[in-house]
């Protein structure tokens, strides 16, 4: 079974400081990993994903994530946080199912991490 853990419910950081939002995963094969951001009363916005290749993935709004296979982690990072980055962040993993008609192939979300960037 696939699973995602976001060990921190909340992350607080000062504007201009680097930020990290942590994510660890458990899959039975090669992982397909995603980060989404959600602003209040809005849908999820795609930030970036890891499929294969370079372990450092660059995404939208200056975010990047580092895939670490040995630590089964996919932490989201940004060198300099903005107040406007304050939002709920979800890590997700896609499982290995190829059969469209089964529950395999679904996206498994972590519980989310609330990021607050204070001025």
């Amino acid at each position, binding site marked *: 079974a696939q699973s995602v853990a976001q060990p921190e419910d909340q992350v607080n950081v000062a504007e201009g400081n680097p930020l990290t939002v942590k994510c660890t995963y458990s899959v039975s094969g090669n992982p397909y990993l995603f980060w989404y951001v959600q602003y209040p*009363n809005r849908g999820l916005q795609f930030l970036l994903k890891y499929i294969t290749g370079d372990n450092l993935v660059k995404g939208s709004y200056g975010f990047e994530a580092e895939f670490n296979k040995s630590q089964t982690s996919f932490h989201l990072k940004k060198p300099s946080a903005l107040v406007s980055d304050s939002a709920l962040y979800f890590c997700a993993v896609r499982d290995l199912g190829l059969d*469209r008609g089964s529950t395999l192939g*679904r996206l498994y979300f972590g519980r989310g991490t609330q990021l607050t960037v204070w001025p």
Partner: protein
Amino acid sequence: DAMVIQNPRYQVTQFGKPVTLSCSQTLNHNVMYWYQQKSSQAPKLLFHYYDKDFNNEADTPDNFQSRRPNTSFCFLDIRSPGLGDAAMYLCATSREWAQGETQYFGPGTRLLVL
């Protein structure tokens, strides 16, 4: 330009009164999904369509139904809403079902049940 559109953004209904939420997409994606999200929790997949093939999650209540009359539109019908069905309902699409495909979400419909 909006790619996944959900209407209405806010919906108020009465306990037991059927309600329909709608989703449309301009991406011409094959797959459309409906998620339920409660109060800062992770989204929970209710069902998805691959083209016209409907796939229900095992734990989705019978109270929830869906229709996809064409590629662009998908509807979520809640036949008899209960207080516990108050939530944000998110529609998403992806080009294909393959593992690496990105799901693109609409802005959501917040449902309030009185």
